[in-house]
């Protein structure tokens, strides 16, 4: 007979695999919160594993094996992969900085992330923050011109946890996109 003192340990052992499965799950979250007057909000929570499960199975003219093909006539001749390799190897720096009477724009590489900041001047001006890991951008680009590997990029995205990828504040509204291990209850 198992003694009472073993019951918590047995329960813990039984629950541990469930905890591990739950912790391994990654969720993409989108939140749109309107201003206080509207009281509007939109919340989307999607398990990344669901997206990963169906991406390789879509096959049509522009989408195959988790890769999307786009008409990129405008940038024909430019090898995106080489461009990104150069970006990856470059030291942290501010690539674009614009200060105008209306807004300031800053595009920079910092600690393995591409950052885009846009700030409209004046009270209540829009604020945009985009923070994308370079690893994700690298994974997105393939050797084929005009082809983006969404499946691989998603695998890299799944390693992120918690910080906002996109944050936009505009007219009292807040839009956030991030990935973490919570299913959205918290």
């Amino acid at each position, binding site marked *: 007979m198992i003694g009472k003192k073993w019951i918590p340990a047995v329960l813990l052992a039984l629950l541990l695999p469930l905890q591990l499965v739950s912790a391994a799950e990654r969720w993409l979250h989108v939140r749109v919160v309107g201003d206080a007057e509207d*009281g509007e*909000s939109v919340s989307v929570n999607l398990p990344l594993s669901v997206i990963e499960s169906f991406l390789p199975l879509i096959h049509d003219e522009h989408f195959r094996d988790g890769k999307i093909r786009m008409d990129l006539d405008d940038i024909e001749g430019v090898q995106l992969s080489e461009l990104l390799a150069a970006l990856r190897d470059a030291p942290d720096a501010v690539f674009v900085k614009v200060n105008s009477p209306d807004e300031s724009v800053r595009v920079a590489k910092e600690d393995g992330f591409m950052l885009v900041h846009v700030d409209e001047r004046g009270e209540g001006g829009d604020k945009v923050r985009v923070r994308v890991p370079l690893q994700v951008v690298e994974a997105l680009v393939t050797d084929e011109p005009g082809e983006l590997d969404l499946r691989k990029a998603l695998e890299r995205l799944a390693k992120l946890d918690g910080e906002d990828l996109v944050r936009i504040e505009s007219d009292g509204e807040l839009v956030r996109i991030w990935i973490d291990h919570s*299913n959205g209850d918290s």
Partner: protein
Amino acid sequence: MSRGSRWLLILLLGGFCLLAVGAVAAAAVVYHAGTVQVDLRESGTDLHVALPAALVDLALAVAPTAALRSATREAEPYLPAIVAAWEELERVPDFVLLEVRSGADLVLVEKRAGRLVVRVDEDGASRLRVGLPLHTVRRWVARLAA
């Protein structure tokens, strides 16, 4: 009891047992397939439908394959992807897929207890609720994709 009466009794009992087993088996199939639930409240009208999903199974089983193919031709390339996504939805823990709130209005799509539940409230009152058993819907789509 005469020999003939005894045989008649045995046959009746046997028949009853077969019917009972059949009823239990049918109940098990219906229970396993779950129910498709629709609740609608509109302009003072209350509509409540709880359709055994097994009926849809039956309809899909007897429907002519050519007619099914014709109806789903455009969606056909995406059906395997839908089945895969649905399988994954069944596996993950319960969650809210979409929640839109605007004042007292609400649109909610969530996975709860093996079902996909859609809820629409207007002015704080329930207007529409739809509940679909995930594993049954996956089976329907898989049947269409086959």
